[in-house]
């Protein structure tokens, strides 16, 4: 078993055991998966198209937020507790450590996001009185592109959390996450009311996720043990 898998497995185990974090995530999913749907559907015109739009941007936004929530636990907690110092003395390379943590964030965040997609579909179906299912491109988007986006954003945030001190992290992570969510909303608004999710839109979103992953993976070469050490809290 590779060290990346070992780290990922430990992170998932630890996240599952962090009741407060999991509870916050579940509340967030339920609130957005159930309570915002009636209002969202009301303002989107034709139900089938509205379902696709919800499946596209709401599931993506929820996924990114789940990743953000878990990233703080997975990357920052070890810096705060000082455990990272011991971890840096193991044979684990920084790239393995970062990759394992990204996988450890992406797996539970994806599962919760899938759950939110089911909730959204169910709530929308109950609200409209008909069975609403996302189109094939949106289904592909939810199953493949959203996890890739979760990995991309958590990888980027995790990288900055390794590189920066605690205070800088608070500011920058807030900026990154809300910047990305704002960008998604902005693009949707820009597309106008006639916006529909096509394979092209899904491919572009997936491409953006891949680009972020590649850029962040390249940036990890600038990570060093010393950089992490000097940004530990006193």
């Amino acid at each position, binding site marked *: 078993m590779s060290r990346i898998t070992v780290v990922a497995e*430990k992170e998932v185990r630890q996240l599952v055991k962090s009741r407060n974090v999991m509870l916050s995530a579940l509340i967030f999913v339920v609130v957005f998966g159930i309570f915002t749907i009636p209002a969202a559907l009301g303002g989107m015109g034709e139900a089938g198209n509205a379902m696709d739009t919800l499946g596209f941007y709401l599931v993506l936004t929820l996924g990114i937020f789940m990743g953000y929530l878990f990233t703080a636990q997975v990357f920052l907690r070890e810096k705060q507790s000082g455990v990272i110092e011991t971890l840096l003395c193991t*044979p684990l390379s920084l790239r393995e450590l970062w990759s394992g943590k990204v996988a450890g964030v992406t797996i539970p965040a994806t599962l919760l996001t899938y759950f939110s997609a089911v909730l959204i579909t169910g709530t929308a179906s109950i609200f409209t009185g008909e069975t609403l299912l996302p189109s094939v491109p949106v289904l592909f988007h939810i199953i493949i592109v959203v996890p890739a986006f979760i990995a991309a954003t958590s990888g980027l945030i995790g990288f900055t959390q390794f590189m920066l001190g605690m205070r800088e992290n608070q500011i920058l992570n807030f900026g990154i996450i809300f910047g990305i969510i704002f960008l998604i909303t902005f693009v949707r608004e820009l597309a106008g009311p006639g916006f529909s999710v096509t394979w092209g839109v899904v491919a572009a979103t997936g491409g953006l996720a891949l680009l972020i992953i590649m850029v962040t993976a390249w940036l990890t070469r600038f990570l060093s043990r010393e950089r992490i050490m000097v940004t530990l809290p006193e």
Partner: protein
Amino acid sequence: MEKGEIFGYLGPNGAGKTTTLRVLLGLLSPTSGSATVLDADLAKDDATRSRVGVLMENNGLYDQLTARENLVYYARLYEVGRPADRVTELLEFVGLTGREKDLVGNFSTGMKRKLGIARALLHRPEILFLDEPTSGLDPEAQHMVRELILRLSQAESMTVFLNSHNLDEVQRTCSRVAILHQGRIRALDSVRHLTSAGRKTGFSVTLADPGQAGKAMDILSSMEGIDEVARNENVLGMMLVTVPPHEIVAGLVRNGIRVEEARIQKRSLEEIYLDVMRQAEGGVA
């Protein structure tokens, strides 16, 4: 450092002990020169890090995981063969059998320290770096940790680098010490040599007749190579710089002083340490 030796790295808070350790472990870069462990720069050599065990002030444990889960995690990172068996063996070694399914967050400081030691030993390191291993422990736990360190050195020929400001601990466990002050090594020697030969030797003479103490004091004060002569009833204490003890006794007896007992007093590491600190603060290296 010699293989199998326990090397004590002594110094007051802020002297640079932990920083030295971090430089050796490749966590910080030296401002000049280089630092190698097992002939490798640990900052760049992932493979050599698997031959080194580390117990920093933080035990490197996760509170949300059980004792066993913590050890299994590190065992897998170090690619230890049959990790479950090795974990069981080490839990027994540090006396935590039966607590393996408990969350580490519920452990006492001493138990966490023991588990931290078990963690550091998982991969059978050739050299073990310990940063203040008994800090915050009760006397019983301190004793247990000291015994563990000695057992590792004696039974497994493990080399141990012990960072500490606990002089008693260092004197009891270490074969060689370095004393650090403001980032510079002020003394480096074996504990035996530091506490006896080569430096001032404590010496005391008990007189059979307390009435002769004044005369004996005069004789001693006139002799070369003796410092800090002091009297406590019929016992005269002094520090010998150059004179061997038997010449002191001979000199007293020649002058009619009746000596009941003569004793060489080894200086404690604490006295040596305080001496070095005083000299360093006075600008004498």
